[in-house]
């Protein structure tokens, strides 16, 4: 492999160290490196509680990791447990990206998740320092001084090298900086023994690779790329490129080729097992109404619907399945809540055989632009009025909040809309404290 023809950009992958936990520590005037703090969601559907984040000290002292449960926490009064404040984390993420945008053009910054961003410094780093490491340290310093947050940074000649440098090397570096370049890619990537520590390889993919006789990154790099593609599809080719540290993507390209979403969906894990048809259909209706509202907000209409049902833990049906999923093409494209609800409920009634339900997912698919409703010769004036009512409800909610107007059915037993309207990303957003 000749790296001479490979792009030699300057890419940073920046991660906020234990983001939620660090924000909570610093807002309390505590040091995240010495305070064992965990952020625990106690929303109804998390059971006894789900750990969303642990401070570095909590990880070190109690061997905690994210997605631990409350039952995994030791009864130790050194441990500080706090509720999540998703709105605060979003606010801090925006503030961090504002700092990053002082170092790169808007197109060269890609917020990758709530605590990770990719920066293409190729064209701008010389404006801020004499060498790349000095600029990287300056970015870290700016974030720390202004927001009291610690950042971990991976540097590479392309995004995949930066991401691997972040995940594998930066976290163990005293300065929280890791570097992989075209010159060092082979040595640093092939040294990785644990495949699941690599971006894009989860435990299932690692098991598939192991079945192909691939146990390390060196073996992945020396496998036949055509064989990998044949066995793993596009992922095979991508993983082969990762093993050589090759990546031709960039934040600017991602902005240009931003894929438009082809469906709009919502799902939820219910706070308990739902047994009756009425209760399950109530939740399905609530989620469908939410999906329809999002469709209208995006000026889209759906040509199809999707329903996914997951049974309660340990329940299987006659075919040994733990749930079902079904899709249905609609007769005409629509964003009318009632039509979508009727179709989704019909899908449910067709396949449900009385199993207790714990997970519901609804999506609107085959999206098209919403120029207006499909005319129907047999539609009544009431049908046209219904759409106007939905648009009005959307406008009221946009102005006064989601719970300013709710369907009366949401007050019935089993309704989750009102409780969920207070959540952000499924967790407590945090009330206004002013």
């Amino acid at each position: 492999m000749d790296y001479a023809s490979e792009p030699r950009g300057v890419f940073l992958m920046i991660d906020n160290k234990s983001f939620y936990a660090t924000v909570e520590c610093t807002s309390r005037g505590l040091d995240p490196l010495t305070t064992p703090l965990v952020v625990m969601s106690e929303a109804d559907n998390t059971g006894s509680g789900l750990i969303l984040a642990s401070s570095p000290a909590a990880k070190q002292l109690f061997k905690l990791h994210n997605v631990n449960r409350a039952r995994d926490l030791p009864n130790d009064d050194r441990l500080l447990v706090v509720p999540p404040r998703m709105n605060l984390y979003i606010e801090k993420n925006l503030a961090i990206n504002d700092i990053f945008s002082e170092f790169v053009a808007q197109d060269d910054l890609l917020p990758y998740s709530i605590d990770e961003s990719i920066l293409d410094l190729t064209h701008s780093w010389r404006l801020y320092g004499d060498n790349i490491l000095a600029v990287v340290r300056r970015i870290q310093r700016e974030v720390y001084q202004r927001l009291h947050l610690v950042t971990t940074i991976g540097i590479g000649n392309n995004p995949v090298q930066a991401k691997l440098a972040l995940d594998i090397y930066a976290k163990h570096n005293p300065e929280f900086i890791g570097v992989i370049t075209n010159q060092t890619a082979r040595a640093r990537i092939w040294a990785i023994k644990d495949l699941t520590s690599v971006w894009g390889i989860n435990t299932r993919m690692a098991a598939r690779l192991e079945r192909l006789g691939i146990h390390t990154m060196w073996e992945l790099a020396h496998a036949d790329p055509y064989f990998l593609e044949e066995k793993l599809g596009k992922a095979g080719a991508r993983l082969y490129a990762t093993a050589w540290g090759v990546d031709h993507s960039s934040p600017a390209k991602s902005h240009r080729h931003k894929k438009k979403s082809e469906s709009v969906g919502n799902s939820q894990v219910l706070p308990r097992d739902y047994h009756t048809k009425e209760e399950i259909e109530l939740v399905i209706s609530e989620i469908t109404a939410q999906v329809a509202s999002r469709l209208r907000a995006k000026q889209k209409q759906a040509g199809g619907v999707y329903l996914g049902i997951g049974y309660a833990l340990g329940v299987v049906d006659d075919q040994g399945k733990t749930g079902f999923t079904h899709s249905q093409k609609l007769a005409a494209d629509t964003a009318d809540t009632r039509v979508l609800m009727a179709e989704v409920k019909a899908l449910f009634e067709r396949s449900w055989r009385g199993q207790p339900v714990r997970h519901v997912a609804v999506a609107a698919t085959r999206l098209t632009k919403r120029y207006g409703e499909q005319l129907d010769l047999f539609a009544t004036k009431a049908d046209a009025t219904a759409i106007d009512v939905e648009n009005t409800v959307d406008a009221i909610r946009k102005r006064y909040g989601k719970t300013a107007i709710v369907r009366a059915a949401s007050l019935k037993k089993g309704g989750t809309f009102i409780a969920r309207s207070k959540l952000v990303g499924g967790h407590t957003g945090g009330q206004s404290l002013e």
Partner: protein
Amino acid sequence: MSKDQPQLVAKRICDRLATYFKQKSRTRYWIAVVYYSPDDCYNLFFNARRPRSWQRSWPIGIIKEADLDYLIAVLNAIHERYHFSYEYRQFQPLELSRLRREVKP
């Protein structure tokens, strides 16, 4: 922007605090008051600690545009309803001595 009366702010804080204050036995309750320099504000947290159990900490208030006189007035107004002890963090020594002197213990 004019600030709300300290009594009104204290009432809101006490109302939020009331949802977390369960009066459990062998439990120490206190309020942490933090100067948060990135936003130049004061953060208030209600803390609870029981032996052989986790310590809990709930956010109960933010006082924007840090002003020590105003903070002292709010803390004294909270004291009229609840006599929790205050723990101060991230304050300058002079501010700290004023807080200790002027806020009712």
